[in-house]
Structure formats: structure tokens, C-alpha cells
């Protein structure tokens, strides 16, 4: 009897001694934006360009008729709060739950949204692509974004967008920072703050004044972008123009640019459209 107690106490002591190992900060699974910012100033290897942080792109396939899509938006807002400008979300209204609109009700569905939905063989909503990897449920987005954030960036992207009269002039500046990148450069126009009907989850009534943010309005340089290649140390500027539609709110427009290839999205950038009166 005494022997049995002795073994139990020994086991408990071992558990106490080993159960509270201190985990080094760099091994913790907590995203720390400050660490990420610091990485920008890492001293580059000799002869290599200054390194840059990786910006992660989330394509959120959503719809006004999708009752669970506002839950996915909540996740996006959490990610935006934690990751700041290292995270770019785009709401793509396409697929069966997207609504095209009519004379009385604003609709956010686009033809390219439908094309993307079909192309990626999506089967339900809400669903998202994190850096254009396999489609995943919104409940897995945080983990997937974390995994992408720690990967090294291969290029730096920066965009400027100026709206004068009814035309936006867009400049995308790229710099290769690590090896050669071949792929496509895609530029999209987004709009924030659109008030439109949305079905709601958890038995809440439909919200007729729901605010839709980061809504994909159109692709600036074609549905699948344009060919793009950059070597380490090289810089390149691409310039393009887009005429805006009257229904878009010019105060709420922004541009998202990203470079992608078969390995997924390599880098992304978002910039607000500046208005020149």
C-alpha cells in the first residue's frame, strides 16, 4: 500500500518538475507584430538587398445571402487588429450566395467574383484562400495567416494610387529582395464602407444597413493579372490607369497589388486611393 503511494507521489513530482518548462519567446505560437516589424531592419547578408516583411493576402469568398459570412468578417477584423498592414483581406462577392443587386437592393456580386469562385472549385461559403493556397474554412484562417507571416519575403511591393477627375493612376513599385520571382502581378480595386443588405448568423434578422468593407470592385489589369518577373536587387515600376464607375464611393477606394505564382502569393500591398481635387 505504502509502495503504491510512493510511486504516485514520485510521478506527481516528476510531472510538476517537467510540466512548467519555460518556452523561449521565439518558440511561442503567438504572433507578435513588433517582432515582425523588427525583421524589416535585419542587417542583410553582404551583397543582398534589405529584407522586407511578408504581407499575407486573404481572399474571402462571401455573399450577402450567406448567413455565416459575418462570422468570417469578425475573424478578418481580429486579424487586421493584430497584424496591421502585414495582412490584406479582400471580400470577393461571388458564387451562389452573392447577390447581383436590382433596382431596390444594392448588390455586391461581380462577374470576376463568380469567375474566381468557379476557378478555385469552391463548394461552400464562407471560405477563403490564404496566399492562394488550398481553400479553407474561416475557422482555420488565423492559423493559416500565422504560418504565412513567418515565411521570408522574396520581393518588396509598394503602391500609390491617385484619383484625378474620374481616373485612378496607379504605380506599383517592386524590388526583388531574395532570389528570382516569376509569376503574375495582379492589381484590384476595393471599396470600404458600403451599406447593403446582409443575412446574419445566430438567428439574427437580416441587417439592411450592414457595412461591407474591403469589397472587390474590379480587377485593374485583367482577371488573372499580367506577367511579372524580378530578380534579386532589381527594381521595377508598373503604371496603369482605371476609370471609376459612378456607383463607387471615391472616398472609400483602395488598391491591392500582389504577385503570385504556382507557389502562392509571394507578396502583397494595399494603398488608399488619394483624391486630387
Amino acid at each position: 500500500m505504502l509502495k503504491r503511494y510512493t510511486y504516485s507521489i514520485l510521478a506527481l513530482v516528476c510531472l510538476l518538475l517537467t510540466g512548467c518548462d519555460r518556452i523561449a519567446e521565439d518558440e511561442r505560437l503567438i504572433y507578435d507584430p513588433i517582432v515582425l516589424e523588427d525583421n524589416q531592419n535585419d542587417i542583410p547578408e553582404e551583397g543582398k538587398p534589405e529584407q522586407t516583411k511578408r504581407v499575407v493576402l486573404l481572399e474571402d469568398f462571401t455573399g450577402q445571402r450567406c448567413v455565416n459570412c459575418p462570422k468570417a468578417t469578425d475573424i478578418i477584423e481580429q486579424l487586421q487588429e493584430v497584424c496591421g498592414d502585414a495582412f490584406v483581406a479582400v471580400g470577393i462577392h461571388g458564387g451562389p450566395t452573392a447577390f447581383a443587386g436590382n433596382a431596390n437592393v444594392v448588390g455586391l456580386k461581380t462577374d470576376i467574383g463568380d469567375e474566381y469562385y468557379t476557378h478555385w472549385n469552391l463548394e461552400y461559403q464562407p471560405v477563403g484562400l490564404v496566399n492562394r493556397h488550398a481553400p479553407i474554412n474561416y475557422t482555420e484562417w488565423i492559423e493559416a495567416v500565422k504560418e504565412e507571416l513567418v515565411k521570408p519575403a522574396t520581393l518588396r511591393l509598394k503602391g500609390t494610387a491617385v484619383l484625378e477627375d474620374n481616373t485612378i493612376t496607379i504605380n506599383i513599385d517592386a524590388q526583388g529582395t531574395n532570389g528570382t520571382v516569376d509569376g503574375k502581378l495582379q492589381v484590384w480595386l476595393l471599396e470600404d464602407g458600403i451599406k447593403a443588405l446582409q443575412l446574419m448568423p445566430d438567428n439574427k434578422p437580416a441587417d439592411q444597413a450592414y457595412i461591407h468593407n474591403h469589397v472587390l470592385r474590379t480587377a485593374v489589369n485583367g482577371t488573372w493579372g499580367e506577367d511579372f518577373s524580378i530578380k534579386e536587387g532589381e527594381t521595377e515600376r508598373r503604371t496603369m490607369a482605371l476609370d471609376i464607375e459612378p456607383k463607387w464611393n471615391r472616398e472609400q477606394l483602395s488598391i491591392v497589388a500582389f504577385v503570385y505564382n504556382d507557389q502562392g502569393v509571394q507578396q502583397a500591398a494595399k494603398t488608399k486611393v488619394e483624391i486630387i481635387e
Partner: protein
Amino acid sequence: MKKLFTLCVGLLSVLPFWAQGFEFQFEGQSLNNDETVIIVAEEDLFGDLSCETNNMMDPGNGLILKLLRNTTANATATLQISHNSLNAGNMQWCMGDECTPMNNQTSLTKRFTVNGSETVQFDATNISGEGYLLATLKVTIGLESRQVNIVFVNGDYDGIQTLPQKENGREAVYDLHGRKVQGKPSSGMYIITDGKRVRKVAIK
């Protein structure tokens, strides 16, 4: 005597496991197993002609799955569409935190956890054809299975086998659960069929 007493105690102890563990409800009323819910196409908030098991402005007051004994349970639900001539632009089935398009499939199974109750959100929207849809939703929790038949109707429903037909050349009146109303109906919403068409009528 002692053996008989033990047997009785044993039987009483397993009785709760035989009791009904969940049910379907429609507009707050319990449905019997295999009962039918008839939903007539109406213009929805988007301005489209739609049939939906839960109204957009009052979700949770339409068709729901409700646990009767436990607060949480793992469920397997299968939606089977056996006929569809509605020509709906979109159909979706939302249960278990996921909305799945049903345009291109006639049968789908989902597994999810029910916390207290689960709204059955099955919608056919942007309907452009006169016709009907017949679907059966079967849910299994543990050893217990229950099902509800869902009928979406727009205009002509001639040929629906599960819907009661006109009787003796007269219009037949059914409640929203698909139960035939005998005698004069009290105030409320009813389905009236004449053998060829179906319409939803408010009786005051």
C-alpha cells in the same frame, strides 16, 4: 420478488435513453416524425421570389432542430432532394456553421454539434419556374433518427405525390405543417389547394 424488483429498477434506469431526445419544430410548434412542411414562394428582402425554411427577418422561428434532453449533441444530417422543378437561381443549405450550395447536388450529409437548437436554413432563391421541390431532411443523434419533409412550391404543383390532393372536387385546406384542416379553420396562415395550384392564404 427481489429479482423482479431488480428488473424493474433496471428497466426504469434505461427508460430515459428511450425517451425522445430531439425534435423538429416549425414556427414554434413540434412536428411529428416524417411530417411535412409546405412553404410557398414569396418575394424576399432581396426582391427575389424565394422559398426559405426560416424567414430572413425572423430566423429561428421557422424550421429548427431542438434538443429535448441534452444541451449539446453530435448530429448527422442528410438533405435529400427528390424532385426540383422550381428553376431556382440559387439553393443553399446552412447547418453546422456552414452554408453549402445545393444547386448541383441532390444529396448531402453534414456532421456538426448542436448546442440546444440548430436552425435549419434551406433556401431556394431567385425562383423563375412554376413548380415544386421535394426534400427530406433526416437527422440522426445517437441511436435516434427523425426526418422532416420540406416542400417548396411556386404556382402549379400538379403531380406532387406527397401533397394531399383536392378531395371530392373541392379545395382542401392545410396548415403550414401540411396537416389537413377539418371544418372551418381558425385565424392564421393556411395552404389551400385545388388539385392544380397551391396558394398561401391568411384567414382572419
